């Protein structure tokens, strides 16, 4: 009797393990447990422009989304492919200038220039970064950090593409509602898209490249090819941000290559929770508005900003999302099955 029970338990255990990834939706409560966090995020983002008090803050939301693109790209490259990318400014610049040129020289409307700038920009960035993809270590980070500086000085020195004045007279979005909902929907699309991607089979290959590139090579796969795909995804995201930014500001200049675009997404990733994909977006929604709020302090702004960053890193170094997810999953014990 006892023996038989033990045997049954062993069999059940196997079944339980194999069905671990499956969710049996059994009650409204469990349904809520799974969907509410996602719905809060989606609905929250969608009503955000409506509750903003002024046009100034609505504009801030758009800028937050631009940073969110970069942070998503950074998190994807750093935590799922193992490439540390400091080239946010590079992607923004390439995407921005492409969109500006397509708009002013060829007269394409924003809804045409943005997809073209995204794909073409992603391809250009990937091509330029291709030589350092077979290397391991810090080289990728150094090269991505270098490119925006190079492009900025080239534009400045050769006085091409409007030189230091930049390209003016870029068309804006039809109105500010289209502008905001376009960037917000894009953030949501790429957020859930990337989450899906990293759990597909090809996403597992990316994660394997991060874990152990030699073993991937021994499995008969060209790691440079897979790294190139990943870099294309991340740089296309950045270029999308750049293209949107240019149409929001109606101007494209060398400030697109500013270091902010490289550094702030990294800070947002650290604060939001690395490797969670949604964390970096959350980080952007915390960091960028804080930096706007702190304008009241004038020159002391950066000091307070740094203090907040340090506080986050000391007290919640794992990131808000990692902490939040852990706490949330502890609720599961309360649900009766």
């Amino acid at each position, binding site marked *: 009797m006892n023996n038989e029970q033990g045997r049954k338990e*062993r*069999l059940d*255990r*196997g079944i339980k*393990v*194999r069905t*671990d990834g499956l969710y049996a939706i059994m009650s409204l409560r469990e349904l809520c447990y799974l969907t509410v966090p996602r719905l809060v995020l989606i609905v929250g983002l969608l009503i955000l422009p409506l509750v903003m008090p002024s046009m100034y803050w609505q504009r801030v939301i758009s800028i937050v989304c631009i940073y969110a693109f970069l942070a998503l790209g950074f998190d994807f490259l750093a935590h799922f492919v193992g490439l540390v990318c400091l080239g946010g400014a590079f992607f923004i610049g390439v995407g921005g200038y492409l969109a500006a040129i397509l708009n002013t020289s060829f007269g394409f409307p924003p809804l045409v220039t943005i997809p073209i700038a995204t794909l073409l920009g992603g391809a250009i960035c990937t091509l330029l970064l291709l030589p350092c993809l077979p290397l391991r270590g810090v080289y990728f980070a150094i090269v991505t950090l270098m490119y925006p500086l190079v492009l900025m000085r080239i534009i400045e020195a050769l006085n091409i593409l409007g030189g230091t004045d930049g390209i003016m007279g870029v068309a804006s979005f039809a109105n500010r509602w289209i502008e905001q909902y376009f960037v917000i929907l894009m953030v949501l699309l790429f957020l859930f898209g990337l989450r899906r991607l990293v759990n597909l*089979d*090809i996403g*597992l*290959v990316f*994660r*394997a490249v991060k*874990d*152990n590139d*030699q*073993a*991937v*090579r*021994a*499995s*008969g*796969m*060209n*790691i440079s090819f897979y790294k190139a795909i990943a870099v294309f995804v991340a740089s296309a995201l950045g270029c999308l941000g750049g293209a949107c930014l240019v149409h929001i500001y109606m101007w494209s200049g060398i400030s697109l290559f500013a270091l902010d675009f490289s550094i702030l997404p990294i800070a947002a990733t650290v604060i939001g929770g690395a490797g969670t994909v949604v964390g970096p977006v959350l980080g952007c929604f915390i960091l960028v508005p804080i930096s706007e709020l702190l304008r009241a302090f004038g020159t002391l702004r950066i000091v307070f900003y740094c203090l907040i960053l340090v506080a986050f890193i000391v007290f919640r170094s794992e990131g808000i999302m990692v902490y939040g997810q852990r706490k949330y999953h502890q609720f599961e014990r309360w649900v009766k099955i």
Partner: protein
Amino acid sequence: MNNQPILEVQEATKSFGGIVAVNRVSLDVHDGEILGIIGPNGSGKTTLINCVTGFIKMTSGKVLFRGRDISGKPPHKIADMGITRTFQIMRPYYSLPCYKNLVIPLFSPRAKRTGGWRGGGKLGDRDTVGIDILEEIGFERDSFVPYKIASSLPTGYLKRLELARCLALKPEIIICDEIFSGLSMSEIASMVPLIERLQMDGITLIMIEHRLRELFRVANRVMVLNFGEKVIEGSPEEVMADDKVKEVYFGSEEVEEVMSHA
């Protein structure tokens, strides 16, 4: 047995600066054979197979696979042809569960070609195929083990996982770099039939080993390396009887023990 060797290494030489790690080593392996490579630490065994599998570039020499020159090709191309290897220091994907570890080789071009594992269909998706391979290699299907994160596994399972990664590619040659080292006697005892079965399935094996007794049980031929040079090559009995080998392994108790059994 076919006369043309499946893998032929001609005068492979690799020098790191002034140190010659592998010095004009030639070998040939025939279809379905198990070739053992032994030698003291630092004798160039791993360097030799790193050269064969393309992980490091040879200074000079040639590697022929079924008569085709594969020297100088990148490792993924060589693995794509069917020459797979395990690593001496196990290299699983630590953050993934075991069966997900096999999704990566099953995603490779070779597995898509040889296995028809595109996902879906009657063979099931890659997860299912991965679990099947794991079961074949000695993971208990109805236990937790295949579903555990690879970083939490003991050495014995990791060694098997290395082999499973090779098997997922449906290889023609598996090069095992010290697959027995670090295992307990009972683990080795359960590993030996596995090796024998791989041979019966028609896979050619090259095994680098320090565990001579187990190696001599399975190997058809054994090659001895010392200071990067080939000392002798022959059947296990010939190698055991050779004086030069005793000299190479002078003082090593295990060899003395094995020799005395011979």
